């Protein structure tokens, strides 16, 4: 290695180190600040305390809001996985004219017409349906928003299940439901797991839909509650915000690690037989 290479290598690592530090700062803040006696916006060595957690627990909405988030996320995940799986299965197996156009339109419209742009009509729709201030309403709206992309991703998984698997089961006398349960679903399980986690993460972080559709403070999820952590003077209460952010992040990270270990994430189909 020439001295020139050596200097170059050092420069490269310094650059990488700086970039890493830049992206690591918010993470370090998130992990450190909740345990700091004097939480601030700057990153500092914490003056260790658990006082922030007890202060957070004094807020009667804090823990219930996490439970609300879980309810909304799981409800939406169940709906999205069930409907996306059946829709993707039929779209993959039945040849109808214009099927691919339909799929692309679904994907396109759902990514262009975002929740924000459609919020007024959605609010009116929910109002007419009497679903304002109802968790069911929030779950339905969120499911509707996530389904097109979920169907699109799952169809790819369904396409990769060889037809002979199903035909073989049919020759043995299996019913359509048995084929779906015993053959198709187990084979595309990584896809279903990916869609479930993706849905949960989306709902977990969604602020706008529950903020607009839910009135009752007892029903609001964690993402909505976050905005209430201000002091009487109107300044952000960093102690509460940082502590709550940490609690807010942990379930998703744990779930991600668990599912990744158990099923592995994949955004494409494919069978290793």
């Amino acid at each position: 290695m020439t001295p020139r290479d050596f200097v170059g290598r050092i420069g490269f690592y310094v650059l990488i180190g700086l970039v890493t530090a830049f992206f690591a700062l918010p993470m370090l803040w998130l992990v450190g600040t909740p345990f700091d006696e004097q939480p601030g916006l700057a990153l500092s060595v914490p003056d260790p305390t658990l006082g922030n957690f007890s202060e957070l627990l004094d807020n009667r909405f804090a823990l219930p809001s996490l439970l609300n988030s879980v309810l909304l996320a799981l409800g939406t995940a169940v709906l999205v996985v069930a409907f996306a799986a059946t829709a993707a299965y039929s779209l993959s197996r039945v040849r109808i004219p214009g099927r691919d156009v339909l799929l692309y339109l679904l994907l396109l419209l759902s990514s262009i017409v975002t929740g924000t742009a459609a919020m007024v009509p959605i609010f009116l729709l929910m109002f007419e349906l009497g679903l304002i201030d109802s968790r069911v309403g929030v779950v339905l709206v969120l499911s509707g928003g996530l389904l097109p992309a979920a169907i699109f991703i799952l169809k790819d998984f369904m396409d990769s299940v060889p037809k002979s698997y199903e035909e073989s089961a049919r020759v043995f006398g299996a019913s359509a439901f048995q084929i779906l349960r015993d053959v198709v679903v187990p084979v595309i399980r990584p896809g279903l797991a990916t869609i479930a986690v993706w849905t949960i993460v989306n709902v977990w972080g969604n602020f706008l839909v529950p903020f607009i559709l839910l009135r009752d403070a007892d029903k609001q999820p964690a993402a909505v509650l976050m905005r209430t952590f201000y002091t009487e003077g109107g300044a952000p209460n960093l102690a509460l915000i940082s502590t709550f952010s940490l609690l807010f992040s942990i379930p998703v990270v744990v779930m991600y690690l668990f599912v990744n270990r158990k099923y592995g994430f994949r955004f494409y189909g494919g069978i290793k037989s």
Partner: protein
Amino acid sequence: MAAIKLDGLTKVYPGGVRAVDDLTLTIPDGEFFALLGPSGCGKTTLLRTIAGLEEATSGSVRIGDRDVTHLPPGKRELAMVFQDYALFPHMTVVDNISYPLKIKGLAKDDRLGRAVKAGDELSLDGLMQRRPAELSGGQQQRVALARAIATHPQVFLFDEPLSNLDARLRLAARTFLKRLQRDLGVTTVFVTHDQAEALAMADRMAVMDAGRIRQVGTAREVFQRPASTFVANFIGSTPMNLLSGVVRGQAVNVSGQIVQLPGDARQHVTDGQDVVVGVRPEYLSLSQSAADGALRGVVAIVENLGTASLVTLESDGFTVAATVADGEEPAIGTDAWALPIPGRTLVYRREDGELVDAPVVAAVA
């Protein structure tokens, strides 16, 4: 155990493709039957129609004394082995074998017992807890067979059973399948595009083309006496010599050379008729000296086939190939004479490609 009777079976796909065209065929109980033909001839569609995976447009399928034409596949009491074996990747071998029994509602002990027994018969013991991905191609095939056997079906259907195996394994599997079928005695239909496979394994075979059966017969019948130039072309590892000629008295004039008409063909031809003389390279004896009734040509190409060589003679207006034992190949460029072995020459009508003694059928538009 049951015979299969197909009567006027027709399958037309939406879009108008007649994949199986008014097909009538009886496969007796216990027979090992091959459906043979080039790609797109309808053989796989026919197999799938027997299985019930495709619905017949018209005609009927009978298995034993039951009319199964409108029954779903699961009620037809047959087992099918797919080309890719269709083993479920998320199940172990034993679960794969016992899955059909689970569908049929057998108790757990019962189906595990039967699965283990079927696995043992195909020497799968020791592999029962593995997943299909951990098995070789040959082992996967045996699992698929065990799964089919364990259901005690009336009929086996195999779709290209050997095509996913490598060449050496294919030969072993051929012998194995034939023995297995003989031991079980279950009526078996298999689809193949490989004529050598059909000749080696099947008791009888149907050669198909464009949704119709061109010939049904034993391996010997189909090999020695192809019913048409299509079958003659398709069957045999070396292509049959098909020489166009004109009948002249008791012989056929092939581009100026004379081939004697076989005795049984003489009454079916008229003088001046356009015919095609068919003779297999294996049924031509080659000599370096002129022989009466032999076709003369110049040795152009010698291809080594292992135990024999295929010698191609070129003459004015035609080429003819003959096999010779190894070590007896003539030198390239020399003259040689190919003499048909008596009784092995076939004569086809040129207009429809059928044997001259076949009844003339009005051409179908």
